[in-house]
């Protein structure tokens, strides 16, 4: 599986832009990694690489849960606040999965039973203060 290294937030964003070209137009991508690993930074790059919105427009969906870009081509979801599977009931995730869109999900690994079996996983690991290791499992 392809592994990449980045040395700054800016490099993580440009890696996301390059990875965007390798991702399917429709499907689910889990972005995993601890708090502060750079999941939102990578999402910025992917959204921008797909031409759905400039990287600067992509902000954290922690509070708002779901952000939509490019008129529904890309969704950015964050499940950080949720504790139990039943709390996701009215979030409408299944509906997003059915759309002709790429759905990026942070903290989705906490609800494996609700994530589609067919998905891409991108793991981000903190190596140093600014360095990150990014591993893609197609």
């Amino acid at each position, binding site marked *: 599986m392809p592994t990449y290294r980045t040395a700054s*937030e800016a490099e993580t964003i440009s890696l996301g832009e390059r990875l965007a070209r390798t991702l399917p137009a429709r499907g689910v991508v889990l972005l995993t990694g601890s*708090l*502060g690993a750079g999941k*939102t*930074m990578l999402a910025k790059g992917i959204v921008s690489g797909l031409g759905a919105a400039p990287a*600067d427009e*992509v*902000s*954290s969906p*922690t*509070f*708002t*849960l*779901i*952000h*939509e870009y490019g008129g529904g081509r890309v969704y950015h979801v964050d499940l*950080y*606040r*949720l*504790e*139990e599977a*039943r*709390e*996701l*009931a*009215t*979030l*409408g995730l299944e509906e997003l999965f059915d759309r002709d869109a790429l759905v990026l999900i942070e903290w989705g690994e906490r609800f494996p039973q609700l994530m589609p079996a067919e998905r891409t996983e991108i793991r981000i690991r903190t190596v140093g*203060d600014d360095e990150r290791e990014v591993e893609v499992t197609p």
Partner: protein
Amino acid sequence: MRILGVESSCDETAAAVVEDGETVLSSVVASQMDTHGKYGGVVPELASREHLRAIVPVVREALERAGTRLDDLAAIAATVGPGLVGSLLVGLTYAKSLSFVRGVPLIAVNHIEGHIHAVVLEAKRAGTPIEFPALALVVSGGHTHLFEVRAGFAYRLLGKTRDDAAGEAFDKVAKLLGFAYPGGPVIDQLAPSGDPGAVRFTFARMKGNTLDFSFSGLKTAVLRWVEARSMEAEIARRRALLRECPHPTAAQWLAVTPAATLGLLASFQRAVIAELLTRAAAAAESIAARSMIVSGGVACNSGLRAAAQSAALPYPVYFPSPGLSTDNAAMIAAAAFPKLARGEFAPLEIAAAASLTLA
């Protein structure tokens, strides 16, 4: 002329009656804080269920306290976005139904514009109306935005957060240290007991729009600071306190929080305030603002209020009273007044817009 405001975009189910855009006849807020506190955040499924439970009694109480009948209303205003669709729908649909049944016009209000009008309303009421152009800093758990507000309430976005909202940074830092949700009030309460110079946080220089905010680096810096120390035991003590007592007092928190951690909290709070005020002041200067408006849940932060007052800015800075800082419906009714004057009514088909922007 009286307007009934209805708000249900996130945590709170709220209704209010406001007269002539300046007199709050009633403002009722049913908070879901207790439900959410348990889960460390807003839970959409619980949120929409709680809104459904609260909406009818909350609206009824707002009307009763205001001594107002539905037939006395000039309009019914409801938040149409941004927010959680499931939550927005409860208030919006209820407002639509009342509007349809009673033949009272419906007005759709943007939640962020509502926050700005919380301040406009109080300034008008106090006889010191806001002078335009004004710089508005709307800062909460979901938003950190800078707007230019021109006369007639025309808006231009000047800057916003590129990553985390300021309130979200407070919540995440509080959570990782074992404090209660929401994080802002706890940190604000404890910060005066710590040394704000204890931990130095540096902000990365940003490329692009210099009026944009960034808080994720600060959050990560706090995380690194915590990871570099063995704080598991003290964090576990705070979590245990929270399980025993859902609303600890400052004294109870202080008993389980050593000086080093208090210094971290004070330094973190000072860094957030500096980031907010520096960029807000630069934005105000860029539009030659004649006043500054600070609104949203983080406007409750006493450190932010004190820093804004002592900054000696060359224009007045307006904060809403605490009850109108956090989500409420009086601000929604107030924001509807200029729209009522312009005849800007919403059709009954109007849909909730989760990612509605103001400008």
